[in-house]
């Protein structure tokens, strides 16, 4: 058990942080929605009713879709685009999906390489793109969920304010949908940009997200 915790401390830490933040969001969101409902002459929503409501679901989904889009684009962009000096980038000249020797595939697969790599063919090709595929799938499903739950949350607000509801097709063209989407996207892209650029010039001793403290600014694709 102790070994399990030690070997998986990074993911356990972020899992705990995620759960705490999600629970905290549920209480803060419930309070915010109830303030609006009471101001409009309605009734308060209980916490169990709130966490199964479209308001909570859209607030979760809009953030998830942008996070997975961020990872999807970062994973794919770093195949072909480089940033000289950044530990987040491959070295200039290494752009592309690389050959079998560099990727331990084909006849260069090791005895302990994952099963689908040793199987070769379509399974190897699929496995070799599985990270981007899953990130992309979660992004698409999250964005679809945002659009469906966002339609419901928006229409609930519309009716409370004595206005007509929208269809799903009308909602995905609406200012509310694109405001929610783009405000999340801009922050995700800024975060990646910050990490890529700042890590060229700044260091964090001991973190694999940083270059070694004494590494020159021009050193690319090295970890601390």
């Amino acid at each position, binding site marked *: 058990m102790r070994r399990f915790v030690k070997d998986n401390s990074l993911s356990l830490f972020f899992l705990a942080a995620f759960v705490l933040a999600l629970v905290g969001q549920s209480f803060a969101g419930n309070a915010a929605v109830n303030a609006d409902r009471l101001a409009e002459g309605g*009734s308060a929503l209980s916490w169990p009713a709130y966490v199964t409501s479209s308001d909570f679901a859209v607030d979760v989904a809009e953030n998830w879709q942008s996070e997975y889009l961020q990872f999807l684009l970062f994973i794919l962009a770093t195949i072909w685009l480089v940033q000289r000096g950044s530990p987040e980038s491959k070295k200039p000249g290494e752009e592309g999906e690389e050959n079998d020797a560099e990727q331990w595939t084909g006849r260069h697969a090791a005895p302990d390489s994952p099963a689908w790599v040793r199987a070769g063919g379509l399974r190897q090709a699929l496995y070799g793109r599985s990270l981007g595929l899953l990130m992309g799938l979660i992004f698409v499903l999250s964005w679809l969920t945002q659009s469906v739950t966002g339609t419901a949350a928006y229409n609930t607000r519309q009716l409370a304010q004595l*206005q007509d509801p929208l269809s799903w097709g009308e909602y995905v063209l609406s200012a509310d949908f694109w405001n929610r989407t783009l405000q999340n996207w801009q922050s995700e892209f800024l975060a990646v940009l910050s990490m890529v650029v700042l890590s060229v010039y700044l260091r964090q001793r001991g973190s694999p997200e940083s270059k070694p403290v004494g590494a020159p600014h021009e050193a690319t694709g090295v970890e601390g």
Partner: protein
Amino acid sequence: MRFRGVSAVAVGWTLLACVAGCAPAAAPSAARAAQDFYAAVQGGQAERACALLAPEAAESLRAGGQSCVTAIGELDLPGGRVLGTEVWGDEAQVRLSGDTVFLHRFPAGWRVRGAGCTSRGDLPYDCEVST
């Protein structure tokens, strides 16, 4: 990558989207509440009609110094037959042949939050009584 994991993710997301996004089957009860309200108004049962208003809607009728029971009889509330109902969360819109009604679902049931409403396009409806 295990396909079982992928299909579990897809099913989970579909359920989440449906639970939170699908409108509940509450349209008939919202429409019934709107019809009960108009039956009370048109039947001269002012006290019953006021009891079917949301508290803040009833309160708004007391603004001119009158009671809800007196004021409600002076409103232009044509009503009519139900043409369609939309329910989203705890809010409902019932379109009648002569009118549009907005309702909110309180713990005690649906109550009218706007009645005698006419459309103003993208702006909020103009209602004879509202919260």
